[in-house]
């Protein structure tokens, strides 16, 4: 992957100059990121006609879901961007993603974390286990919702739509209702996880449903509406478009 391709994809050149396989998955990723509720079986048919296999599409969906979560955490919590990005890239090369999981894992390989695997079995179960994990994380916001329902809902919708707008005032409001910083972290995390879950479900809905009618018929059952977070709220009117 040369720098030219990076520049093209990130918008300096018309996308048509990029490899058609890549171009197709980038278009799909864009739609899934911005308007997950509009993704249908037609979109996955376009991908397949561009020569993408089901595992290739599946991986694309998981990348979108993974980064929908972490970008929301980064924006909502205001992660400082390092001056020199190459240090982070270098660490990633040396330790891998797994190396960032805990202080110990920078030095040892932690047996508690899934090992990288190229075998098909793991890759088939990966979306399911990711979905189950995300579902469990969306439940973490319960404590904050119980303590301060209105303020918690406001933070959740901000994290879903415009995470960099989460501000100290929101945090203070929750604290005045007795929320601890840990509870607030969990609330933000649960909202970010539900944004990720929505995209994962929308992507696999499109991939696995043979026709648009069937997808609509199943959509109601597929998207969980847990008591305190309506995961589909706020994703239809993304303000950044």
């Amino acid at each position, binding site marked *: 992957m040369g720098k030219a391709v990076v520049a093209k994809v990130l918008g300096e050149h018309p996308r048509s100059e990029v490899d058609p396989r890549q171009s197709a998955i980038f278009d799909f*990723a864009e739609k899934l990121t911005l308007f997950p509720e509009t993704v249908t079986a037609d979109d996955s048919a376009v991908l397949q006609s561009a020569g993408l296999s089901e595992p290739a599409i599946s991986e694309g969906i998981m990348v979108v879901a*993974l980064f929908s979560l972490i*970008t929301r955490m980064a*924006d909502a919590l*205001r992660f400082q961007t390092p001056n020199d990005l190459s240090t982070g890239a270098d660490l990633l090369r040396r330790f891998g993603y797994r190396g960032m999981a805990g*202080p110990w894992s920078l030095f040892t390989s*932690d047996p508690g974390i899934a090992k990288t*695997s190229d075998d098909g079995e793991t890759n088939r179960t990966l979306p399911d286990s990711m979905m189950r994990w995300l579902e469990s994380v969306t439940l973490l916001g319960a404590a904050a919702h119980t303590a301060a329902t209105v303020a918690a809902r406001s933070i959740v919708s901000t994290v879903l739509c415009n995470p960099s707008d989460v501000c100290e005032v929101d945090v203070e409001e929750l604290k005045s209702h007795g929320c601890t*910083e840990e509870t607030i972290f969990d609330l933000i995390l649960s909202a970010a996880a539900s944004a990720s879950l929505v995209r994962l479900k929308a992507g696999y809905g499109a991939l696995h449903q043979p026709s648009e009618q069937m997808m609509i018929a199943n959509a109601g059952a597929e998207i969980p509406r847990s008591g305190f977070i309506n995961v589909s709220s706020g994703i239809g009117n993304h303000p950044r478009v």
Partner: protein
Amino acid sequence: MLLLNLDAGLGKFSRAVLHGFRLLSPDAPFDILKAFWYRGTIFGKPFCGFAEAIMRGTPSWSRGEKELLSAFVSSINRCVY
């Protein structure tokens, strides 16, 4: 400035490792590490496990292609991180 004081929620060992790390490499992405370590069991470990498996393990796209796709998703999310 981070929105929440994540340092306060980290154990002594984690803080010591971060401190040593900062001396060695001042430009490392500390905030993301703090967030992972703050909620290690429910967030850091599973997230990094999935990230490793998805970004490195699955074979249909090259590592470079997936990094590029992830950078693209971040840019649509207007996130520089």
